[in-house]
């Protein structure tokens, strides 16, 4: 039996130091992961931009790297990403926010205990399954009302993605609402405000930074979502804000090229890293902003 580490001034036993070193290495893997992402994306993106100018990437309005007449303008892919994400957030935000209000202000503890894991189910369904639903159920259902809706479209993908992000928005919003001190509510009640008035005039304004965080992180999740859009939104990069038409998102493009037989170390191959780097910068920025606004008490979770 070794001596009690906390009572002796001497160094901990050798075994202990080895274990600590090993655990430290395990922790360092996360640093390697980040470094790996930056290096892989950086290296291939650098090679990409040695052949394609920044001006072309940021100002051209067409994305046709696989055609004879090659264009490398990111905007069509960015536009597809924005369109599907916008639809998702427009759908997901009201459901997420209102359900958070219900769970935090109205529901009994027992209902919360059942409803929260039930909502989490939505986040647990693999996205390839949601993609199937969007393509096989939502699109045909919508086509009954909108005959001009094409078989692949931004609308169905966005709607289903909205469903997928409800639990994320709900749980982040609920954290934000919880973080509003109870005293503020009681003060409002004491002044004669009803429950609804208190929620609308006191709780929601008090939680706004946390709610903003929920919104930002949800947008980031939607932008990075891949399989739903790869299956249901189509593979046609085009500069449009018409949700009925097929579009291609940045993520779907990466999948499309990966499924094909593009030889490595060609310009076409490098496009997926350039697109991936753009995606990374976008989501990383949003996450950074979002996490700054997560309420303090919850930040460690």
């Amino acid at each position, binding site marked *: 039996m070794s001596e009690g580490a906390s009572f002796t001034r001497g160094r901990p036993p050798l075994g202990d130091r080895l274990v600590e070193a090993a655990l*430290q290495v395990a922790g360092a893997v996360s640093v390697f992961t980040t470094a790996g*992402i930056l290096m892989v*994306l950086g290296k291939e993106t650098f090679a990409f931009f040695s052949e394609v100018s920044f001006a072309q990437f940021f100002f051209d309005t067409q994305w046709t790297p696989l055609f004879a007449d090659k264009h490398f303008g990111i905007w069509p892919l960015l536009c597809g990403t924005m369109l599907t994400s916008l639809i998702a957030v427009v759908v997901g935000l009201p459901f997420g926010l209102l359900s958070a209000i219900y769970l935090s202000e109205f*529901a009994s503890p027992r209902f919360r205990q059942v409803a929260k894991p039930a909502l989490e189910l939505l986040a647990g369904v693999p996205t390839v399954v949601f993609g199937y639903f969007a*393509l096989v159920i939502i699109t045909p259902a919508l086509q009954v009302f909108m005959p001009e809706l094409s078989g692949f479209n931004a609308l169905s993908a966005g709607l289903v993605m909205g469903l997928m992000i409800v639990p994320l928005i709900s749980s982040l919003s609920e954290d934000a609402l919880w973080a509003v001190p109870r005293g503020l509510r009681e003060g409002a009640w004491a002044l004669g405000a009803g429950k609804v008035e208190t929620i609308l005039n006191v709780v929601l304004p008090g939680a706004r930074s946390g709610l903003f965080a929920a919104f930002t992180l949800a947008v980031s999740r939607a932008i*990075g979502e891949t399989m739903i859009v790869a299956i249901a939104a189509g593979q046609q990069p085009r500069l449009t804000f018409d949700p009925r038409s097929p579009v291609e998102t940045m993520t779907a493009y990466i999948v499309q090229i990966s499924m094909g037989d593009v030889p490595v170390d060609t310009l076409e191959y490098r496009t997926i*890293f350039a697109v991936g780097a753009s995606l990374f910068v976008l989501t990383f920025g949003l996450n950074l902003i979002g996490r700054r606004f997560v309420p303090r008490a919850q930040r460690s979770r």
Partner: protein
Amino acid sequence: MSPLFRHHRATGARMERVFSTICGLAVWIPLIILAVLLVVGLSEGVSRIGVDFLTSYPSRKWEEAGILPALVGSVCLLVLTGLIALPLGVGAAVYLEEYGQRGRFARFIELNIANLAGVPSVIYGLLGLGVFVRALGMGRSLLAGACTLALLVMPVVVIVTREALRTVPDAIREGALALGASRWQAIRQVVLPMAMPGILTGSILAMSRAIGETAPLVVVGALTYVTFLPDGIDAPFTALPIQIFNWVSRPQKGFLINAAAAILVLLVTLLSLNLSAILLRNRLQQRMQG
């Protein structure tokens, strides 16, 4: 009480009922939609499920196609991913929670993990392609796929393990140290066993995330038409979500039915993983209290 005031109270109560009903609907509607999608979308697949479907190889004829290589591939991936991600994730969490709390290095790692948790999974695919498939020369193999998934779920494992470790009261650590245990002895013999229910549950949940991941495996180079079983960790592979994606992408109706059946298999697997996590946690918690 003036009539006016009473009137105000009444409308207030009605408004509250209306408002809380609307909010309550926001909980129910997404769940109902999910239920409808599951029933409407997958009922056709039920008839396809059978021994033949589970034990056949893919085929150009949808009636003969099965999911054997995908199923075997998914199981292999799951085992390998677990072998890599769980020790690393739990180790990192123990380091952060029990050793490095105040250190600068620990805080740097913490920040890193928080950032990694928000990186889209398709980016992990690009990482796997660049590092494991190409730089480390693993090729488009099971091992490369598992390493990629392991890095993807590691932040989840770290986060849930830390939460579990935090539920162990400090007095218990101090008690162990006071009895002469070294720090690692206290962790291994006292803290980890107490945190085990939480760690196991969280790990199973992390693994169930890995089993449904599609995009990173597509990018790493999982095959979509495999007529053999993997014979080692360096073998090419496919997985259940990849097979589903492949069938969904085909125009023929029959393959969509196959996709529905494969989705049912995937969801049942996920559900049983989650159920086993809950049961395991309950069992272990009882034993700890007993």
